[in-house]
């Protein structure tokens, strides 16, 4: 017998969690744009989306975030440190690729300096993922050695029931068990069959790509220019990526008061690596695309033993010129032959 959560009880679950002081987030659509938003009831959730347009990452690493405030007086400077907001959260209806992405960035934010901005939110959040029963042409989790029902980065995994009326529930962490304990009266025991997971074909040979990328001979290959010629450097692939983490630090305000902020940045932008002297190590868009691919599939995995991509496919799905990681790695796979 498995533990089941029927869709009819989801609204009560959300109410129960909220009564316990938890904020509940989930996929929702506002103004035609989907993302993770705080919800008060099950009716606000958009659980049929294959993927939200913006990622789960934003709940842990906001697009812009104040780090400190300053106020300058005649005799002194007053500063105020801003810390991430307190408060426990349940994030319901996450896709496994997005959840796995959070685990990828855990490695970076815990490397050497333990980043409080990231981990305060991570430590106070429960990620409840739903295995995918549908995929689109852009999904490629299986190419990254993940799967539509991967448990990486999730605290609870829900498997949709074949009848479409709920989910089979599996706690994966202690945090997940605690979240389920508070809704235990709403969970049922049953043998209802689960729906098959989505069929996501493998689109490239990851190991072959990695070995091509790791060969220094290929760093100056003409391939990079050819594959990236139409990149317009808009950065949308980085902003919509669950694992991209680059940021900038800027002051906003005037001489008397203001805020020092951390803002998302992108390796696709020409100013990203520009030295003060005017020298730019990555002066061309092809050099920047090479860096993006190298970072995700060579450098990051060398350092942290995990690829910085979980196959969500947003980079390709939302690219204004129909480029993306998939096409590049497929082409590298071809170069191998």
């Amino acid at each position, binding site marked *: 017998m498995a533990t089941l959560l029927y869709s009819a009880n989801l609204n009560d679950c959300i109410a129960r969690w909220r009564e316990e002081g938890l904020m509940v987030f989930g996929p929702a659509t506002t103004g035609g744009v989907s993302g993770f938003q705080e919800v008060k009831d099950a009716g606000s959730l958009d659980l049929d989306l294959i993927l939200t347009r913006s990622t789960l990452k934003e709940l842990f690493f906001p697009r812009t975030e104040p780090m400190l405030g300053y106020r300058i007086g005649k005799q002194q400077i007053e500063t105020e440190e801003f810390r991430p907001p307190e408060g426990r959260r349940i994030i319901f209806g996450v896709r496994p690729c997005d959840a796995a992405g959070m685990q990828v960035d855990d490695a970076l934010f815990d490397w050497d300096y333990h980043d409080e901005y990231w981990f305060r939110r991570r430590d106070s959040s429960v990620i409840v993922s739903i295995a995918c029963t549908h995929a689109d042409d852009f999904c490629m989790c299986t190419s990254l050695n993940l799967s539509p029902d991967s448990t990486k980065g999730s605290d609870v995994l829900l498997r949709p029931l074949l009848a479409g009326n709920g989910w089979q529930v599996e706690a994966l962490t202690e945090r997940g068990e605690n979240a389920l304990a508070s809704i235990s009266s709403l969970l049922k025991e049953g043998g209802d069959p689960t729906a098959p997971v989505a069929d996501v074909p493998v689109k490239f040979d990851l190991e072959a790509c990695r070995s091509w990328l790791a060969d220094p001979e290929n*760093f100056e290959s003409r391939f990079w220019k050819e594959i990236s010629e139409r990149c317009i450097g808009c950065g949308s692939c980085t902003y919509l990526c669950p694992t991209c983490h680059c*940021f900038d*630090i*800027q002051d906003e305000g005037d001489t008397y008061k203001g805020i020092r902020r951390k803002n998302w940045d992108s390796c696709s932008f020409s100013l*990203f690596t520009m*030295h*003060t002297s005017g020298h730019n190590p990555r002066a061309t868009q092809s050099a920047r695309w090479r860096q993006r691919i190298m970072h995700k599939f060579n*450098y990051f995995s060398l350092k942290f033993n995990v690829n910085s991509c979980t196959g969500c496919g947003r980079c390709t799905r939302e690219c204004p010129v129909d480029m993306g990681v998939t096409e590049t790695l497929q082409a590298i796979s071809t170069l191998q032959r």
Partner: protein
Amino acid sequence: MKIVATRDEAPGVRTMRLEFQDPLELEKFKQAYRTGMFGLYGIYGEGESTFCVASPETRNDYIECTFRKSGRVTAALASAEIGDLMTFRGPYGNRFPIEEFHGKNLLFIAGGIALPPTRSVIWSCLDQRDKFGKITIVYGARTVADLVYKQELEEWEKRDDVELVLTVDPGGETPDWKHRVGFVPTILEEAAPAAGNCVAVLCGPPIMIKFTLASLKKLGFEEENVYTTLENRMKCGIGKCGRCNVGSVYVCKEGPVFTAAEVSSMPQADL
């Protein structure tokens, strides 16, 4: 931190001496700071900029930084006055392994505004002079006016335990210039310091580094005995923001000090 002294070094180039206001912060800095490390210096409302700590670990009651006015933050720093407060984050990065230099001859080579990181090592070694053999400093700038630390250059020139070779690029000399005229790599080859038992510390713009490394090779220096600093754009200083990547190296964490051998193993186009 409080600005306690300033000095104009060259057109647009300024040195500031900074002191900690909080004794605990000073103590933390003294514990952590080693020559080669850098910091993020800032003015509220304008932002932060990355420079090396130009003062040596042997003089760690204060911080000196030298910068060229070239953007919003450095313009604000340049117009700050003695007594003004500014921000400092750091020290970050790795260090020159000075203990490994003990008993060896030292060759310092710097170009233009890259004397500040070199100066930090020079003074760290001069402040414990008896631990090192012959010390040679080769320093060049585009013009006489662009030479920084002019007072210290005079001081080093007068010392009989330092050989100072100064040069300016052709056309950058003045009528009363008594030193060399020529590019650093050429002048270095003319000065021909012996490579045996010698460690070279090289800082400069990328193009100068490239040609000087070739000259050092000609002179017989092994890449393992040549140290340099990478000046990649850095913002967070703690290996998170992503912009200082060269290959799998995060310069702000694993650098900025590298041997020439380490630099050779990096993707050169990203330097």
